[in-house]
């Protein structure tokens, strides 16, 4: 069974149709990168996958559960879907450690002691073991984003969604964050990554989706999509960014 299944997804803001009709699936352990110019709807597509945006039409299934069905508890579904944002969105009034243990403890997944132990392990993993007691305001952008990844991982998600995770970073910070993401991909995490980092997509993705004007224009393994694009619009986009 697919980890994520998207059927005829539509999303409008008022009269503006952002996602017109998208159907696709993401298999377990698959890494899918979503590319496209700004305003193409790629971020909106990602945000529909955990219902941060309410869908205007169609269905999204996470691990077989329809997230649009009001009978299914969206909060429980979201616990399985980690999300990393462009602007980190760490909780500034809490230490790094508190950021990581908040959700597992308050949602009754772990008692505070095992949650702390696990959080410290995750911080080690993203290379920030020494920053547990720091506040987000004391960290650099790259460090914040790695904390944000660790915070999402603290819930043991089955899927990780990344919304342009390196777009707000200084160039010298990008590598650290991408490094952590590569590590995750290697461990078999299912990932959907909206990104402008074509190099990352080419290296790590199992499949690349090119979204334009609310549709998936083309999808393929990165080697084919970047090396031998079939559609005119894909070619035009790639000639601008590569």
């Amino acid at each position: 069974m697919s980890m994520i299944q998207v059927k005829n997804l539509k999303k409008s803001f008022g009269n503006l149709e952002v996602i017109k009709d998208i159907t696709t699936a993401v298999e377990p352990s698959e890494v899918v990168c979503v590319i496209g110019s700004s305003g193409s709807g790629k971020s909106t597509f990602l945000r529909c996958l955990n219902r941060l945006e309410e869908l205007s039409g169609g269905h999204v299934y996470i691990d077989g559960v329809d997230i649009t069905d009001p009978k299914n508890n969206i909060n429980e579904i979201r616990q399985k879907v980690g999300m990393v944002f462009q602007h980190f969105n760490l909780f500034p009034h809490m230490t790094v450690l508190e950021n990581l243990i908040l959700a597992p403890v308050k949602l009754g997944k772990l008692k505070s002691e095992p949650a702390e132990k696990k959080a410290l392990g995750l911080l080690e993993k993203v290379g920030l073991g020494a920053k547990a007691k720091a506040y987000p305001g004391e960290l650099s952008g790259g460090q914040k984003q790695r904390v944000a990844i660790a915070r999402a991982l603290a819930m043991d998600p089955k899927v990780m969604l990344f919304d342009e995770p390196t777009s707000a970073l200084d160039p010298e910070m990008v590598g650290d964050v991408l490094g952590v993401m590569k590590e995750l991909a290697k461990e078999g995490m299912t990932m959907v990554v909206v990104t402008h980092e074509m190099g990352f997509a080419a290296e790590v993705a199992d499949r690349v989706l090119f979204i334009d004007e609310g549709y998936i224009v083309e999808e393929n393994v990165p080697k084919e999509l970047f090396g031998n694009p079939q559609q005119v619009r894909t070619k035009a986009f790639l000639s601008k960014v590569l």
Partner: protein
Amino acid sequence: METIIESLPMLWEGLKMTLYIFVIAIVLGFLIGLVMALLRLAPLKILNWIAKIFVDAIRGTPFIVQLFFIYFGLNSFSWVSLDNVWAGIITVAINAGAYFAEIIRAGIQSIDKGQTEAARSLGLNQSQNMRFIILPQAFRRMLPTITNQAIISLKDTSLLSIIGVADLTQRGRVIVSATFDPFTIYLALGVMYFIIIYLLSLLSGYLERRFVLR
């Protein structure tokens, strides 16, 4: 000097009454304000309207009129019996509540939308998001304005002397009518109010430093 020393026990009683009214009214007022702010931001139009009408009605009428309405107006019904102290507490609480509602609403709205998105994406529901993420940050930002309103409400309690509440101001008036020394007594009252308000702003300053926004 002698007048002051002789009247100190009475002023002390008045001060205790003022503080008693202030503490209860400000706590009630804050709760009213919090509820009204949440109604104002609730996803249901009718709730927004209830909160908006409440806030507009209170902000658009004088404190004294509200006090008379609650003490004399409500007491004219046979099934209502409010003593002047509780009528005063309720008036100060409702009045402060309307202003707190606006302060809290603005504070909540000042927190970046990304905070809610991050909290919800982790699986927190809306009320957990409010409790753990939004309100703790909003309150830090609101602290100076909250203190300001608390000081205004404390000063408003002196108006309760008009309906005979034996607060600091009323005790002062009684002493003046017995001693014929308004200069000394009202100066002493002013000093006493000033000290309390100064302590309040010190407390607020301490809290602001303690919970500095990072």
